[in-house]
Every structure is written in structure tokens, then in C-alpha cells.
């Protein structure tokens, strides 16, 4: 199984367990970060998002 396949499969399986579409979108983002830079990337990006919210800025800054 290729790396891409693994994360896609994982995303699909987890998405099935989520009801809200916003949560599915968030999962997709998280898996992309995980694929990119592992758990550290996920943690860093999520904390960055929380900081943006606290600063009153948009969360879509990439």
C-alpha cells in the first residue's frame, strides 16, 4: 500500500465515524498535515489555528 493510499484509506474509515461535515473537513486537514509532517505538524497547525481564533483572525490562513 502506498503512503497516499494509507492516509486516504484512514481518512475514509474515520470519516465514516463522523457525522458533521465540518468535522470531516477538519479531519481531512489534519490527515494532510499528518502526511506532510507527522504528529508534530498536526499539533503545531492546530495550536496555530487556536491562536488565530484568539487573535480574532480568520482560521484559513495557510
Amino acid at each position, binding site marked *: 500500500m502506498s503512503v497516499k493510499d494509507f492516509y486516504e484509506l484512514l481518512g475514509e474509515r*474515520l470519516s465514516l465515524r*463522523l457525522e458533521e461535515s465540518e*468535522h470531516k473537513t477538519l479531519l481531512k486537514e489534519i490527515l494532510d498535515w*499528518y502526511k506532510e509532517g507527522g504528529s508534530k505538524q498536526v*499539533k503545531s497547525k492546530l495550536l496555530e*489555528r487556536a491562536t488565530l481564533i484568539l487573535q*480574532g483572525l480568520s482560521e484559513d490562513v495557510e
Partner: protein
Amino acid sequence: MSSETFHLTNLSIEGFRGINKGLKLDTNGLSTVICGPNGVGKTSILQAIEWSLYGWIPHMKGAEFDVEDAIVNQFHPAETAKVELTLESPENRVKIIRTRKKGHWSRRKSKLVVEMKDATLKGKQAQAKIEELLDLTEDEFYASKYLHQDAIREFIIGDLKTRSAMMDRMLGTYSLRELIDSLPITTITRRTNEIQTQLQTLQSTELRNLPVARAKLEDIKKKLLQKGIPEGDLDIRPLPPLLQELAQKVENLAAQIGVYVSHIETPSQNLPALQEASSRLRNNISLVESERFKKYKELSDKRVTLTSLRDQYKNVLDRLKSLEITDKETLQRKIQEIQAKLTEKKTKREENRDTRDFLQGESITLTNLQQNLKDLQESWEKLISEHGDINSVKEKIAHLDEERNKLRNKIEGLETYGQTIASALEFIKDQKPDACPICKRSIDPLEIADHLQKEISQAQASSQILELRQSVKKIEGNIQKLQRILGEMDGLDNRLKRASVALDEEKKKMAEKTGMAEIDVETVNETLRKAESELKGLDSSIEELTFEKQRLDGDLSHLNEVEKGLKDLTQKIRTEIGAEETGDVLLRELSEAVKKTEEKISSFDTMTSSLEELNKGLMRFEDIHAYLTQEAEVLKLEQEFPELEALMRELTDKHQRLEKLTRGLEDIKQAASAEQKNVVSDMLGEIESEINEYYSKLIGHTYYVDLELSLETRRDKNIYWIKAKGTEHETHVQTRFSNAQLNITAIAVFISMSKHLSKNLNLVILDDPTQSMDAPHKEALAKMLADESKEKQIILATQDQEFQEQLVKLVQPNKHLKVRSWGTEGPVIS
């Protein structure tokens, strides 16, 4: 990610742990048994492998390893540790070189070089390359490649998190665990809560401030109206002149008391200026009140002092006046005079006492002597009257003596006659003469004898002799009686003479002592009575003088006391009122001072009402000021309120967005956790049977014959338990297994894990795995390892001779390294 399979082919060690000089081990990728007694450096060889790969030996824990370098060999001349490890795969050959200079502790600090066919890497890149090639983290290496007894037991009974992560690695669900662990839900929740707290604070304080302030304003207004302050006065304009007026009054009072207060100018018509001025006025009033109280107290104390002094002084003067003599010298002279008289009288009294005592003695003596003389004279006269005088008695005695002599002669004649006849009778009887020898006439002897016999009988029995003897006896009795009387008379005469002499001598002595012409008992008694009378007079006189002296002594003492008190008091009064006078004049001045002090106190009393008025005025000012301040606060809050509302909206928005993010993450975490459980539940059975296969080969436990792995969610984390099962019961292995059984469990799990984790490094290292095992278990382990060695390279160190012989026989082909002993240059290889 690499998928090559590496074997360890060469190992070169120098200056590391127990190895000083270079030691080379060429395994050629084969399983290797290192054997030898304890303490010869076997473990150092195995530790060199782990240190070269990860630069750290995790069992080196504790304070001692923080203060001493346990990596570099103590005897190495260059104080440098160097390990070269060669890993080979069919396609690749990687040489790992790790070095370290001796430091002050055993923590990570080493240089790493990785040499490959096409590249040489150093430091972090080199370390990352090792992990990439082997697909094995440090934790995984210790859990599946290097079976150190302590490490594997720690894995079994130690940290749940590490154990669970290992299990997920084995089961292929580590990504899900890592994904879950990477979600910073706790941090984001904490930040959400902080926003929530801010919102609550805003709602409970600042947003409530305006209505609260308005209510407070109304409350103040209501109270002021109740106090009688008209609504029209709730204005800032009359406040400056009102404060100025009050300030002026305070200054006037301060001047009266004699205290300095700061001058207050008319304040500006704004609340802070009025506040500042009212504070200063409050301070001034406090100062005046404090000073007034202080001075009032001083005056009151002074009044008490002066009044007390006045009363004492008056009392002392009265006492002085009450004394009869107020001149000390006159008093002392008078006392001396009385003392002289007293001394004289006492001397005289002593003399009189001596005279009286003498007379008393003499009176008794004289009386006795006279009585004695009288008694003797009476006895004398009685004897004279009875017996006549001495001469008469003597004559009677002489007469009686003469008469007695006559009678005695007569008796003697009669007795001689009788004896003569008896002699004649005896002669006659003897001689029987017939003639008288004298007259020669013839005689009849018998007749004569009869005749003589009759004559003797008549003479001897004659009553005449008896009568004569009676008369003699009687006369002798009379003589004795008269002689006794004569003796008495002589004695009495002597005694009379002596008594007379004694009386005369006593009288003479007394006459000499008293000068009395005539001495007798009567005159002596008369003189004695006079002496006693004089003594009584003296006693009375002495008593009177003593009383008088005591009275005068008392007066003198009293005078001294009064004078001393007067002196002290006068000094005190003079100091107190600054006067120079004494006596009544001083008393008048003192009374005057008391009066003046009371007048001053009275003036301070009137000041109290002025201060009360001032306080009332200031309170009215402060009430109006408080109202106006509150009014200004309400105005300010009304202006700020829209800003606060905007802030509330912003915070609410942030809070909602963070909550939304947290909910999403929680949802994803739940999904990942559920997915992990789902995947694991399918795979656990397979892993379990593999572990149990090894557990069975190693003869694990006689009752708990199967091991069971389970996954549970605990405190929001998925964790694994290892239990052992029997036919009816099950147990956590940590709670009931012996050390040997725990080791067997550990080896079973370890070998199973080594199969699943990192197939890239086809190597298993075991350090003394037979500890606590008996012969059957050792044999079972040797057989199992022989089987495993067919698929993977095993490097094993043991001190157990029997076990190593079994291994060398069963594991084929193999390399066999025998370490004989250890010295400062390192292990000695056979």
C-alpha cells in the same frame, strides 16, 4: 521508508565501558554466543551495539551517572570511547562510527558518523538515517531488539504508555495512536476556558457595573434627601466656597489651640480638586482634634496634679500649725532637759532601791537576832528558876558526890568483912586449926566454921548492902541529871553571849551604814517605810517624765516629717507653677493656678462643639461630593457601555469558534479511538497465539497456560493489559508470577515483538536471559533460540556454562566468543 534487511557483520570497540584496548568481533552476520564468567565485559560488548545505534544506554539512571562518565573506559590513554558497527544488507553496507571524549556525566554527548556507499552523514542527519534505514525508534529497539533483563521486565510491569505504544506498533495501529496524541485538545480546551472566564468576569463585573452604579446613585440620593439635604444642593457650584469657609474655621481653631495646619485655598470647581481639598481639610480637622485632645488631656492631668498638690500642701500646713512647738531647737533642748532629769531620777531611784533592799534585809536580821536573844533569855530564866544558878547546882553535885562516896565506902567495908570471913572459913576448912592463929586460944574448928558460915550468909545476903547500892545508884542518877542541867546552863550561857554579841555587831554595822544613833527594829522599819515612800514618788516622777519625753519625741518626729513633706511639696509646687514663695502665700498662688487651669479646660470644652459643627459641615460636603462622584461614575459607565458590549460579542465569538474546534477534535479523537479498537480487536487474537506459542515452548506456567492481550480505554487513552489465563481463573502477570515466570513471559512477548517491529534489522540481542531459570527452562529456551536463529541473527551473552554449551550445539552455524577474564586493558579473549 527503506525495506532492506540488515545483519550485524562487524563490531570494533575501544575505550568503551569495560573495554580499553581494541576489541573486534567479526560475526559475518551469523548468530554469536559470548560466554564467560560474571564481570568479564560481556555486557559491555552488547551495550556497545546499542550505544553506537542510539548514543545512549537507558539503564544508566540515577544521580551517580549524572556526576561521573560511565561511557568512557577509565583506563583508556586518550580518554575516548569509539565503537564502529557495520550493518550489511544484500544491497547495502552501512558503517556507523560513534565516538565520545570523557566528560563529567554519562548523558548523551557523542559524535556520530554514518558511512554508506554513496554518502557520509554526520550528527542529527546520521541519527535520522539510522532510524530511517532500520525503521526503528529507540523505544522500539529496547522493546524488540535488545533483551536486557531489566528493560523487558520494565516493559512488562512498567510504563503503560510505552507498553501500549509498542503494542500498537506491533498491531499496525500506531498511526492512530500518534494521531490521537497529536490533537492538542487539552491546550485548546484550556484556552477556551480562559475565554469563558473572561466572559464570566465581564458579565459579573463590568457589564453589571452600570446598573449597579445607577442603583447606588439613587440610593445615595435617597439617603441625602433623608438627611435633609435638598435636591437643589446636589450641585458642584456651592462646594468650593463651602469648603473654603470650613477650612477658615479650622484654621481659626488651630490658632486657638496653638497648632499649625496647612492653609487650604478655594478649590477649583471639579471633583478631584474638591476631593483633594476635602482630604486636606479632613486631615486638618483630625490634626486639630488630635491636638485638642492632647492638650485637653495635658490640662486635665495638670489640674489633677495641681489640685492634689494644693490639698497636700494645705494638709501639711494644717499639721504644722497643730504642733505646740514648731521650733525644732527648742523642742530638742526641752527633750534634752527632760532626759537629764530622767537620768537623775533614775539614778536616785536605784540608790533608794539599794537602801530599801538593805533595810529590808537588816529589819529581818535584827528581828531574828532579837527574837533569838529573847528566846535564850527565857530558857535561861526558866532553868534558874528550876535549878538555881550554876554555883548552886555545882554545890548540889559536890554534896551528892560526897554522899555517894560515903555509901560506897560503907558497902566496901561490908564486902571486905564478908571476904575476910570467907577466907577464914576457907582456912578453917582447910587447916582445921584447933587454936586461934591470932590469939592462940583453942577453938573448935567445926564450930567456928559453922559460925563463920552463918556470918557469911548473913553478911552476903544483908539487905543493907542492897539498900546502900540502891542509894548510890539514885545519887548517881541525881548527879547525872544535875550535870546535864549544868551542861545546858553552860551552853545557854554561851549562846546568850554569842547572840548578844551578834546583835551588837549588827547594830553597829547598821549604825555605820545608816548613821542612825539608835538602832532597833522599829526605827529600822520606820526608815524602810520612808524609803519605800520615796521610791514610789520617784517612780511616779520618772513615769511622768518619760511620758513627757515620748510626747516631745513624737512632736519632734512629726515636725521632721512635716518639714520634709513641706520641703518636697514646696519644691514640686514651685516647679509646677513657677513660684518662689512659701507657706500660705504659695498656697494662694497654687489655688490661683488651679483656677486658671480649670478656666482653660472650660474653654476647650466649648471648642468641642465647634469641632462637631465642622465635622458635620465636612460630612455634608463629603456626602454631596460622593453623590456627584457617583453621578460622574454613572456617566462614565454609560459612555463605556457600548465598548464593553462590543468586547463581549468578540469574546463570545472567539469562545464559540474555539468550542467548535474542540468539538471537532473530540469527535475526530473518538473516531480514531474507535477505529483503533476496531482494528486491534481483529488482530489481537493473531498476536496472542504467536506470544502463546513462545510462552508454551518456554514452559510458562503450570496453571496459567495462556497469555491474553486486551485493549481498554482508561482516562481517555487506549491501553493494553497482559493477563495470564488458567482453566477457571485469570490474573495480571505482574501480580502472581515468579521472577522466572515473568522472564519467560517477557521473552515470549519480546521475541514476538521482534518479529513485527522493524523487519529491517534482523537482529536480536539477549543479555543473560536465563536468570532465575532451572535446567528444563534453560533447555527449552536454547531450543527456541535455535529455531529463531534460522530466521534471524542472534547475539547472546551468558555466564551459564551449561546453557552456552547447549546453544553452541543447537545454533548452527555460529560464532563463539569465549571471554576468560578481565583486566584494566579489557576482556581477555580465549
